[in-house]
């Protein structure tokens, strides 16, 4: 066992796993300090996530957008960009999906792909701006994406209200052919909102992995991210790659928006402030080591904390504990060097 833990080859998954474990441990300690029985709390959490088929379905519903924003942030990280703007890209993506969902009337097998595509394209366009400004004017993408988030929020709120039939809070429903939701999935999960988005998220992770690891395009993107000057030396178009990489990152975030607008809700909502998916995406990406498949898992984990927090609240555990646990998991994930050192020392002292 100790040898298994010490072996560096296993660290790739042992370390995130330990981070999660420690995160829950820290949450438990806080619960104990504040007079709550952590076992009860966690039992409620587990029940809240897998307690019945409906909760199980809702877990997946909560996870799909997180997986996509996780992929979005991770794609940026892998290519040397910090996309703090997934939130804004998500907002425009969700809007674009709804617009196509309302106004284009074609059969579902064309409509749904079209809806998703437009969400991705809208997100990509929102990502284009910071990408372009970075490539052309060397403006720091972090500032631009922060500003783009707020801009998206307000402008899209305006746009939603401007759509025919919209009230001050929402658009009309999308056409059924544009919706990700599924009678079948809903029925097998006891009327949850489970929709096909989850499969699309998995597909997204595969695409992510494939682009990054298996294509010359991904090779270029990574190269440019790590060392732009060497990439230029190797004949790559550095600026174009920066822009493209920001756009792809934006496309993933745009799809996260589609998960919400044509998956969870089936209409566009006017929202007063950002809902935090973009920032959660940072956590998801980081815990998922910026790698496609691990992001599915970390997205599911954070999705569980989200989906399960209602149940915890019902068990009289303050809802904030979910956030606190999330924070600790991220914190421990950040300490991977420390954890590795700790693992390496394991057993050594016993000898």
């Amino acid at each position: 066992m100790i040898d298994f833990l010490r072996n560096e080859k296993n660290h790739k998954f042992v370390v995130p796993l330990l981070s999660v474990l420690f995160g829950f441990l820290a949450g438990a300690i806080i619960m104990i300090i504040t007079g709550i029985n952590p076992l009860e709390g966690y039992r409620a959490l587990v029940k809240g996530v897998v307690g019945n088929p409906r909760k199980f379905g809702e877990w997946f519903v909560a996870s799909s957008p997180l997986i996509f924003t996780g992929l979005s942030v991770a794609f940026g990280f892998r290519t040397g960009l910090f996309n703090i703007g997934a939130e804004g890209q998500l907002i425009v993506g969700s809007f674009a999906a709804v617009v196509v969902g309302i106004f284009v009337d074609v059969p579902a097998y064309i409509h749904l792909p079209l809806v998703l595509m437009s969400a991705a394209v809208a997100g990509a366009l929102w990502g284009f701006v910071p990408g372009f400004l970075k490539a052309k004017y060397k403006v720091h993408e972090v500032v631009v994406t922060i500003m783009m988030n707020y801009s998206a929020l307000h402008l899209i709120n305006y746009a939603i209200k401007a759509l025919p039939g919209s009230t001050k809070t929402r658009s009309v429903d999308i056409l059924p052919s544009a919706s990700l939701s599924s009678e079948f999935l809903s029925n097998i999960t006891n009327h949850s909102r489970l929709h096909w988005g989850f499969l699309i998220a998995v597909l997204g992770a595969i695409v992510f992995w494939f682009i990054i690891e298996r294509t010359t395009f991904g090779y270029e993107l990574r190269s440019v991210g790590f060392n732009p000057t060497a990439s230029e030396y190797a004949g790559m178009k550095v600026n174009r790659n920066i822009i493209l990489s920001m756009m792809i990152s934006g496309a993933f975030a745009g799809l996260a928006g589609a998960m919400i607008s044509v998956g969870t809700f089936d209409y566009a909502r006017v929202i007063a402030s950002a809902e935090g998916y973009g920032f959660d995406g940072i956590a998801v990406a980081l815990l998922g080591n910026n790698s496609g498949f691990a992001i599915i898992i970390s997205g599911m984990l954070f999705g569980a904390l989200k989906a399960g927090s209602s149940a915890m609240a019902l068990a009289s555990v303050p809802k904030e504990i979910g956030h606190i646990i999330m924070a600790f998991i991220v914190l421990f994930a950040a300490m991977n060097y420390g954890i590795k050192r700790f693992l390496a020392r394991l057993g050594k002292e016993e000898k």
Partner: protein
Amino acid sequence: MEYIIEMLNIRKEFPGIVANDNITLQVKPGEIHALLGENGAGKSTLMSVLFGLYQPEAGEIKVRGENVNITDPNIANGLGIGMVHQHFKLVHNFTVTENIILGQEPTENGRINTQKAAKEIKELSKKYGLDVDPSAKIEDITVGMQQRVEILKMLYRNAEILIFDEPTAVLTPQEISELMDIMRRLVKEGKSIILITHKLKEIKAVADRCTIIRRGKYIDTVDVEDASEEVLASLMVGREVSFVVEKEDANPKESVLKITGLVVKDSRDLNAVNGLCLEVRAGEILGIAGVDGNGQSELIEALTGLRKIESGKIELLGHDVTNTNVRKRTEIGLGHIPQDRHKHGLVLDFKLAENLVLQTYYMQPYSKNGILNAEEIKKKAQELIDEFDVRSGQGIETTTRAMSGGNQQKAIVAREIDRSPKLLIAGQPTRGLDVGAIEFIHKKLIEERDKGKAVLLVSLELDEIMNVSDRIAVIYEGKIVGVVEAQKATEQQLGLMMAGSTTDKEEGDRK
């Protein structure tokens, strides 16, 4: 006091390697003591131990006869030990003054007294002949001047024992001889010097004694006067080393590269290359000699497509490539070993295998329809590291950053030579390498020539130019001031031309 520094039986381990294994180094006051060894022999490590950057696992250190425990550079400074590191430790956007006073700032009411500092620095630089501009920013000054700043840093701290780690690897011949003078002057003023260098000539020129280490182990300490270069070299590598580059006469054929009236600006918007004309032919190695900063870097960057060309024309194998991009030139048949391997040559966070296809990843068989073929890439990479003897911890899976400089360089050379480009531009291909590695790379360049390829060798190292090239073009202020047959060229003649004199131009050979 017989020795000012004594490092006795020092042992320093790194994970998986003993960098210093029972090494002893004794330096007499007032001497220049050379430390010699191959790449990775453990010289820098030993000096880092002396300077307090690393703690040794075993051994003792005596300074001026007293046992000391140097746990951090502050203590070393306090003992009068100063170090010029292999890679300069200068803050690029600080002024010369700020870099020198950092950590020991003269203050006045809590505020740094820059004037006082600048005055002190002026005095110091006058005393030791170290010409610097105290208010210039590091990023704006030449490498030679940066080194003088490093030296001033030590002197400012009243260092008595000065460590130079490979100080000449980045210097021009002129700067090297200046540095030698400076060192002599320092010793005369009562300082003691430890000098690390791979260049035996330099050791012969200034050092009094020399300690040789090999693979972390102490080999010997010799009086330099009594040891020939050959002896030093064989002590260092443990075998005979040949200094003469053996090669047949060149057999030049058609023109491969033709440059006419080239003008290129540098990053400060001045004409660095200023109406340069040059021709390189297949089957020859053309060396470009010159003092650093005369437009070499800009010339290479212009030729390879990394820098914009103001005017003039570049023809590569009959194609006008003046305004084509990097990729196009590569495909026409240009290879490039860049001067700065970390900036241009490698993506340090890539695995070695990935770096070995940096120029070809998009071509068959390494990829098809935009999809990488991992198997082919690995196969090729393995082939290359075997052929070029690129060594690293985990073979082609090693993260390039973790490799030694010498091996990183070999990887680049392998990648570029393997494509066997019609024209290979080699920018300082052996910078900082030990003699064994240098010998290898030189052999490879000559092999290319013999295959009928053209090689353009740009180096600040006159020996290298003279040994390897068939013809030598001397660059001065962005122009070629003359081209001479390497066999007929003498060091004095080249030296004069590099200083801008054109009197020997008639000997130049411009067909």
